[in-house]
């Protein structure tokens, strides 16, 4: 009896344990100081490493997974971050986040700085301070080769479909010219793929992207000339003057000692506006764009499928497995929250006093009727405004758990509804209290009815857990999109990630079926009753 009671207590306490220490240890990144009175560079020095935010899904040549060995992040900004960190006397640690949310994550305290093609623009300065620029990118227009009607000037973009990145200078330029702008949250690859197959008429993007994705595609043509210039700067926390000064000083030094020139030359990115910006020495005339050459060799021509399977995919397995483990752990813990809270909601809704019933209904409708993404954003970015800063892992578990609790509550309500009123009456006439009748008679029967839909929900949750990538967690889907972008291979890697998802969900589907079969015989209600 006491052992059983202990087990029940532990089960009820599980969500609390979820919020505790083990969760933090599992989280790859954890939140730190709130956004007030920060000195990020001092924190970084105390820690011995500077956390720099980026989105590797954005791809080459900024920050991306080496297509030949995806366990390594490479890119000219990886080299730049390392050089910058070196000047600041710390190590550089890249932290993953969605590109269009990087500055918000910086403000929240998830990074010390952001280095990922952040363009100098007024609206960005509202969220973060920007360093002096470290690179100037020309805007380049790419069209389909042989497309006689292709727009080749800015004016010609009017009314045409133009692909670019959201919130970029290129997007603003295209909009100003009256183009029909189509922006992409995924990899750069997709932008040029859509151009090639005719979904857009042109792509306006920064030089480095054009060089690495547009120019290497034989079906595409880069129009001569620059259509504008965007300067890239390091994002630092707003009002953090110490960090701003330290970063600016480091960029100055890197420009003067020729480190940046050599770095850009290696990536094939050295250009006139950057030369003017840096004012330092030029790269040596013997410099070879070896990094760009390596990229072309790796992804310029897609390998046949079977070669990809044997040569490229084995190196990705470790990354996929890590992503899968994170997806699984987050899902299991979120489900524990959902089951416990859902049960409480269902009991409140079916057996509680009126005010409690209304509260439960309100909760269920609110969480069922609003998108999970909105809830996750509110938990992660909204709660810090109230002084509650959760780590990405805990925020992910809580948001998923709160959302699925609404679905579970409805499952259990249906389960409780399937128990005939006479069962509770019978328990009551035997002298059981209402609570005892619920626990020993109604709940065990309700749970058996609710179990199959609950297992289904778990599988749905497993898939929805992909949303936690917006709070810097590299789970299975994010692993896929980043790799696909870096290796320019969406279809083959898509099959790999599908196998991983099936590997996670099939055991639960099987479990659901066998439980259903096992319980079916005992649960079936006598026809006469």
């Amino acid at each position, binding site marked *: 009896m006491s052992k059983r009671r202990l087990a029940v207590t532990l089960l009820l306490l599980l969500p609390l344990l979820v919020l505790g220490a083990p969760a933090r240890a599992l989280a790859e990144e954890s939140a730190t100081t709130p956004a007030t009175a920060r000195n990020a560079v001092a924190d970084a020095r105390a820690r011995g490493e500077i956390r720099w935010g980026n989105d590797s899904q954005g791809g080459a040549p900024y920050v991306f997974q080496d297509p030949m060995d995806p366990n390594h992040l490479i890119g000219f900004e990886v080299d730049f971050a390392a050089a910058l960190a070196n000047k600041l006397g710390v190590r550089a640690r890249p932290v993953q986040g969605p590109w269009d949310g990087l500055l918000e994550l910086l403000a929240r305290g998830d990074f010390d700085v952001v280095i990922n093609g952040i363009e100098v623009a007024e609206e960005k300065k509202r969220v973060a301070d920007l360093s002096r620029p470290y690179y100037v990118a020309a805007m380049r227009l790419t069209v389909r080769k042989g497309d006689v009607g292709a727009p080749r000037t800015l004016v010609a973009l009017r009314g045409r479909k133009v692909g670019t990145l959201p919130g970029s200078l290129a997007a603003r330029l295209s909009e100003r010219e009256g183009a029909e702008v189509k922006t992409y949250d995924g990899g750069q690859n997709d932008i040029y793929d859509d151009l090639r197959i005719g979904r857009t008429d042109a792509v306006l993007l920064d030089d480095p992207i054009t060089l690495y994705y547009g120019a290497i595609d034989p079906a595409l043509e880069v129009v001569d000339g620059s259509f504008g210039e965007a300067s890239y700067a390091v994002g630092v926390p707003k009002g953090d003057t110490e960090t701003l000064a330290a970063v600016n000083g480091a960029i100055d030094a890197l420009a003067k000692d020729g480190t940046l020139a050599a770095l850009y030359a290696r990536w094939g990115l050295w250009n006139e506006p950057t030369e003017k910006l840096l004012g330092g020495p030029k790269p040596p005339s013997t410099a070879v764009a070896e990094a760009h050459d390596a990229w072309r060799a790796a992804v310029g021509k897609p390998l046949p499928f079977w070669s990809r399977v044997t040569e490229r995919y084995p190196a990705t397995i470790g990354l996929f497995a890590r992503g899968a483990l994170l997806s699984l752990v987050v899902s299991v813990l979120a489900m524990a929250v959902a089951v416990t809270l859902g049960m409480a909601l269902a009991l409140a809704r079916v057996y509680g006093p009126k005010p409690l019933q209304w509260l439960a209904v309100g909760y269920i409708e609110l969480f069922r009727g609003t998108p999970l993404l909105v809830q996750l954003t509110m938990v992660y970015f909204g709660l810090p405004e109230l002084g509650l800063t959760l780590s990405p892992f805990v925020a992910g578990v809580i948001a998923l758990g709160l959302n699925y609790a609404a679905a579970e509550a409805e499952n259990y309500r249906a389960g409780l509804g399937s128990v005939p009123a006479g069962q509770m009456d*019978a328990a009551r006439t035997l002298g059981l209290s209402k609570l005892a009748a619920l626990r020993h008679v109604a709940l065990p029967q309700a749970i058996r009815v609710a179990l199959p839909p609950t297992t289904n929900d778990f599988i749905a949750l497993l898939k929805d857990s992909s949303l936690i990538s917006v709070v810097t967690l590299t789970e299975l889907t994010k692993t896929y999109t980043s790799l696909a972008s870096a290796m320019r291979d969406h279809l083959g890697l898509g099959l790999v990630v599908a196998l991983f998802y099936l590997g996670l969900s099939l055991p639960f589907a099987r479990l659901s079926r066998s439980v259903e079969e096992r319980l079916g015989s005992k649960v079936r*209600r006598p026809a006469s009753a």
Partner: protein
Amino acid sequence: MSICVTDLVKRHPGAAAPALAGLCMKVPTGKIASVLGRSGAGKTTLLRCLSGLDPFDGGTIDVGGVTFGAGAKHGSFGGRIGLVFQTFELFPHLSVLDNCTLAPRVVRGEARARAEARAMDLLAELGIEDKARAYPEALSGGQKQRVAIARALAMEPSVLLYDEPTSALDPALKHEVGRTLRRVSGTGVTQIVVTHDLPVAREASDLVFVLDKGRVAAFGPPEEVIAEAA
């Protein structure tokens, strides 16, 4: 122990006439009483009030010297008065034995071994000890009924109520009910059987009450009352 119901009143919200309008009845210890009456005469309401499932608005119920008034709360009889449901309402997720030991263990905190020993005695008494490990869905109607009786008797009630005990049984099994009632009566439990089955009432009961409009319209030995009614 005997049961004495005095001036029992029960009104259903919104109904013009009370379902029980000052009903009086007395059943001596160990006797079997049948309650007859047309639909709407108040039979089901009487059962629900006597079993403590529904509160009543006036009068008293006296069980073995303990009196409950209109303020009595739900379930306050605490196993003193048992009820065998028309549909039996066995717990489908529990074995026959567990059906019979749940209340003693949960309500009285009886040890499992003791509760099981008593339950086995009761099941043996009713001739279904071989079904102890079975689940309710594997039982016939008559077996279910005897499990429901054993389950109620496990709480050692003074009074046992039955709601239409023959309605869910094959006609061939109906005479079994009378035998079962006699067996139970041997243990000293007072039994009240709500039924519309005249032969069962005539054969199995010591006393018959005929309800009409929430009152007892006639009562007495079965041969007298049923002859009159017929």
